[in-house]
C-alpha cells in the first residue's frame, strides 16, 4: 500500500468515526441526516480511491465515482447552509436541497461531454458546479462570520473546514496536474479535517436535552398571539411561568428554557435546562428552534434571558433573540422572553427591537395593594403571617397562592368569632369579602389582561390620593389588631416548614435554614408542599450530610458537638412528625 492510499484510508476511518459520533451524540435528526449523507459521500470517495489504487475496485465505473463526487460537493454546501441557517428557518431548510437538482443532469451529460473524475476541477460546466458549491459554502461562512455575533465562532470553524476542502480539492488537483503527477481521483485528503470542523459546530450548537417533552405534532391554539415574540417585563418570571402553565394545560405544546426546573413544569410543559457552556445562546436557539419545528404553533418561554446573557454575553444573546422571532414567525408559534434580572442597558436594547412588550406587575405587590385597600397598613402584617405560615418569602408570592391566602384569611376571621361580635364582626367580614373579591378577580386575569388593565397598586394609590382617612384606616381599631393577632396564631399553628426551620436554625444558626432549603431542593419540593413523610427523609439526609462533615473534623470536642446537633435535629423532627400523626 502506497503513502497516498494509507493517508486516504486513515481519513476514511476518521470520517466513519465522526459519522458514528454525530449519529449517536446529535439531537437534530434533520442535521444528522445531512451530515451522514455528506460524510458517507466522502467516505465512499475515499474507499473508491483506495480500492482503485490497490486494485480491489479495478472496475469502478467512472460515472458512479463522478456522481458521488458531485453529491459530496453539493452536500457540503447544503450542510454548511444548514449549520448556519437551519435554526432560523426550520421549515424552509429543505430549500437548500435544491442544490442537488443539477447533480443527476451533470452526471448524465458527463460521458458525452468527456468530463471525468481526473479532470473534474478543470474549466468546464462540471468543474464550475463543484467550485460553485464550495464557493457558496465559503461565502455563507464569511458572511455569517462578519454579520452575526452568534455565529462568529462556529463560522470560523466552518471556514476552516471549507478552506481545507478547497486546498485539498481544486488547489491540490491543480498542483498535481502542474507537476504532471497522478491526481487523487476524487478523494479529498482534507475531508476528515472538514468533517471534524462541521462536527464541532454541530456539537457546539447541539440542543439542550428536554425533560418531559410534550408529544410531537400539531398542538391546540393557545390564548397568546401566534407568530410573535413577546417580552414580559416583570421583576420575577411569575407571569411567564404562569402563562406557560396555562397554555400547556390548554393543550398547546410548551417548552420552558431556564436554569432550574420550575415546579409548574409538571403541568405538561417541557423543560430544557440551560447548561453552563460557552455557546449557551446558540444552543438555546437550536433547542427552541428544533422544538418549534416539530411542534408548529407551540410556545417557548425563555425564563432566564438574563442568565443567557451572563453565560454567553449580551450581543450574542440578543442575536439569538432576533433569530427566535424569525423562528416564531416561520412556524406560527409564540416565544416569550422574561426581562427578569436584565440590566437597564439590556432592557433598552431589547426595547429597541420593537417586539410586542407587556409590562406586568409583581403579583406579591398587587396582592399587598388589594389587602391594603381593605385592611390598611396592617395588610403587610397579614401577608407576613401568611408567608411565614407557608414558608415563603414575600417576594415569592404569586397569583397561585391566592386560594391559600383566602383560606388563611377565612380561618383567621373564624378564630375571631368568639372575640369580635356585632357590628365590628360584620365590618371585618365585609372587608374580607371585598378583599377576596379583589384577589379573585386579579388572580383570574391573564398576562395579556393585566398588561392592558390597571393594576390594583396603581388604582389604590390614585383613589386614595385625595383622602385624609380611608375606609381601611377607619376600621383600623381594636378589631383589626385582633385580626392580625389571630393571623399570627393561625400562622404559628400551621406550617411544617416553619417548625422544621426553627429546629435547624436553633441547632445550626442561620446556616440551618440554608441546609433545610437545600434538602427541600433535593426532594424537589417547595416549603408549602412539605408533609410529615418528607420530614423523616430530611432528617435522614441531614444526618448523613452532617455526619460526613463530622467525620472530617479532627477535634474531638467539635466532632461530639456536631454529633449532638445531629441527634437533636433528628429527635425534634421526629417529635414534629409524631405530633402531626
Amino acid at each position, binding site marked *: 500500500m502506497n503513502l497516498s492510499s494509507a493517508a486516504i484510508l486513515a481519513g476514511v476511518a476518521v470520517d466513519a468515526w465522526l459519522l458514528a459520533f454525530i449519529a449517536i451524540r446529535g439531537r437534530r435528526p434533520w442535521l444528522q441526516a445531512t451530515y451522514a449523507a455528506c460524510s458517507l459521500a466522502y467516505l465512499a470517495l475515499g474507499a473508491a480511491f483506495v480500492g482503485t489504487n490497490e486494485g480491489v475496485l479495478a472496475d469502478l465505473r467512472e460515472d458512479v465515482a463522478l456522481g458521488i463526487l458531485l453529491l459530496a460537493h453539493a452536500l457540503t454546501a447544503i450542510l454548511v447552509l444548514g449549520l448556519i441557517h437551519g435554526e432560523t428557518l426550520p421549515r424552509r431548510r429543505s430549500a437548500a436541497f435544491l442544490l442537488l437538482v443539477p447533480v443527476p443532469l451533470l452526471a448524465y451529460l458527463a460521458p458525452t461531454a468527456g468530463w471525468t473524475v481526473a479532470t473534474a476541477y478543470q474549466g468546464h460546466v462540471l468543474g464550475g458546479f463543484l467550485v460553485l458549491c464550495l464557493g457558496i459554502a465559503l461565502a455563507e461562512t464569511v458572511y455569517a462570520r462578519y454579520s452575526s455575533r452568534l455565529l462568529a465562532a462556529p463560522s470560523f470553524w466552518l471556514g476552516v473546514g471549507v478552506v481545507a476542502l478547497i486546498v485539498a480539492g481544486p488547489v491540490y488537483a491543480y498542483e498535481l496536474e502542474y507537476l504532471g503527477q497522478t491526481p487523487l481521483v476524487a478523494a479529498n485528503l482534507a475531508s476528515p479535517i472538514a468533517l471534524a470542523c462541521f462536527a464541532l459546530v454541530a456539537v457546539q450548537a447541539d440542543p439542550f436535552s428536554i425533560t418531559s417533552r410534550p408529544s410531537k405534532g400539531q398542538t391546540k391554539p393557545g390564548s397568546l398571539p401566534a407568530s410573535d415574540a413577546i417580552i414580559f417585563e416583570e421583576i420575577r418570571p411569575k407571569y411567564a411561568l404562569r402563562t406557560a402553565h396555562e397554555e400547556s394545560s390548554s393543550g398547546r405544546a410548551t417548552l420552558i428554557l431556564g436554569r432550574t426546573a420550575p415546579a409548574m413544569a409538571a403541568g405538561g410543559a417541557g423543560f430544557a435546562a440551560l447548561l453552563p457552556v460557552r455557546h449557551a445562546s446558540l444552543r438555546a436557539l437550536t433547542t427552541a428552534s428544533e422544538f418549534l419545528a416539530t411542534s408548529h404553533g407551540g410556545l417557548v418561554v425563555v425564563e432566564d434571558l438574563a442568565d443567557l446573557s451572563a453565560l454567553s454575553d449580551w450581543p450574542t444573546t440578543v442575536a439569538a433573540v432576533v433569530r427566535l422571532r424569525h423562528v416564531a414567525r416561520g412556524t406560527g408559534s409564540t416565544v416569550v422572553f422574561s426581562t427578569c*434580572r436584565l440590566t437597564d442597558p439590556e432592557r433598552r436594547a431589547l426595547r429597541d427591537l420593537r417586539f410586542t412588550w407587556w409590562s406586568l406587575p409583581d403579583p406579591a405587590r398587587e396582592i399587598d395593594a388589594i389587602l391594603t385597600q381593605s385592611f390598611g397598613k396592617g395588610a403587610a402584617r397579614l401577608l407576613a403571617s401568611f408567608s411565614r405560615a407557608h414558608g415563603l418569602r414575600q417576594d415569592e408570592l404569586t397569583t397561585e397562592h391566592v386560594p391559600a391566602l383566602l383560606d388563611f384569611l377565612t380561618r383567621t376571621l373564624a378564630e375571631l368569632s368568639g372575640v369580635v361580635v356585632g357590628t365590628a364582626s360584620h365590618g371585618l367580614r365585609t372587608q374580607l369579602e371585598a378583599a377576596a373579591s379583589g384577589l379573585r378577580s386579579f388572580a383570574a386575569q391573564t398576562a395579556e389582561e393585566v398588561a392592558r388593565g390597571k393594576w390594583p397598586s396603581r388604582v389604590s394609590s390614585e383613589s386614595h390620593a385625595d383622602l385624609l382617612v380611608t375606609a381601611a384606616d377607619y376600621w383600623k381599631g381594636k378589631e383589626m389588631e385582633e385580626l392580625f393577632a389571630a393571623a399570627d396564631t393561625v400562622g404559628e399553628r400551621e406550617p411544617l416548614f416553619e417548625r422544621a426551620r426553627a429546629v435547624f436554625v436553633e441547632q445550626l444558626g442561620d446556616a440551618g435554614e440554608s441546609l433545610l432549603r437545600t434538602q427541600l431542593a433535593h426532594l424537589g419540593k417547595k416549603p408549602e408542599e412539605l408533609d410529615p413523610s418528607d420530614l423523616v427523609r430530611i432528617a435522614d439526609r441531614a444526618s448523613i450530610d452532617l455526619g460526613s462533615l463530622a467525620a472530617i473534623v479532627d477535634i474531638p470536642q467539635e466532632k461530639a458537638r456536631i454529633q449532638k446537633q445531629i441527634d437533636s435535629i433528628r429527635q425534634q423532627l421526629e417529635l414534629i412528625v409524631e405530633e402531626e400523626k
Partner: protein
Amino acid sequence: MEARLRTFLVRSGFLFLISLVLVAGFWYHREFYQIGFTNLLIIGGFVTFLVIWAARLALSGELPRGRPRGELTFSVEEADRVRKAVARLVVRPSEGTTIPGVGHVVRAMYETGPEFGRLYIEDARRAFLSDLTDADARQAGYRTAAELREMGAARWRWRPSDTVTVLRVRPLGATR
C-alpha cells in the same frame, strides 16, 4: 509546579508537532517549490508565519483558551482567597460591569492595578442580591450572605433589590 511543568511540556510538544508538519510539508512539496524562488518565498513564508504566530500564542498561555477578555478586580483579601481556590464564586454587580461569558479567561487584578493571575469562567448566573444564600456566600469566601451583602454595600452601594452576577471561576495560575 508540577502542573506548570506539565503545561509547558504539552505546549512544547504541540509546537514541536507543528514544526514537524511544517518540515514534512516542505519535503513533500519539494518538487513544487523547485519551480521557483517566489513560490517558496510566498507560500513557505506564510506557513512559517503561521507557525511563529501559533508559537507566540502558545508561549503566552493564550492557547488553547484564547486571550483573556476583560478583567476582574479584587481586594487583597479576596484575591488571596481566589488564588488559593478557597473561594470559587465571585459576586459582582450586574449593572455597569462587563463580564465575558462562560469558557473565557479574564485577567484577575488587584484593586491597586497589578495582575495576579488569570481566571477561567466555569459558570455564570444572575441573581437578586436578596436571593443569595449562605451557601453562595461561603463559596465566595464569606461566612454568611449578610457579610457578603455588607461588603457589597460598602464597595458598590448594593441594595437588596439589585441584581448581581455570580461567577464560578477556576484560577489558571500566575501571570507569566
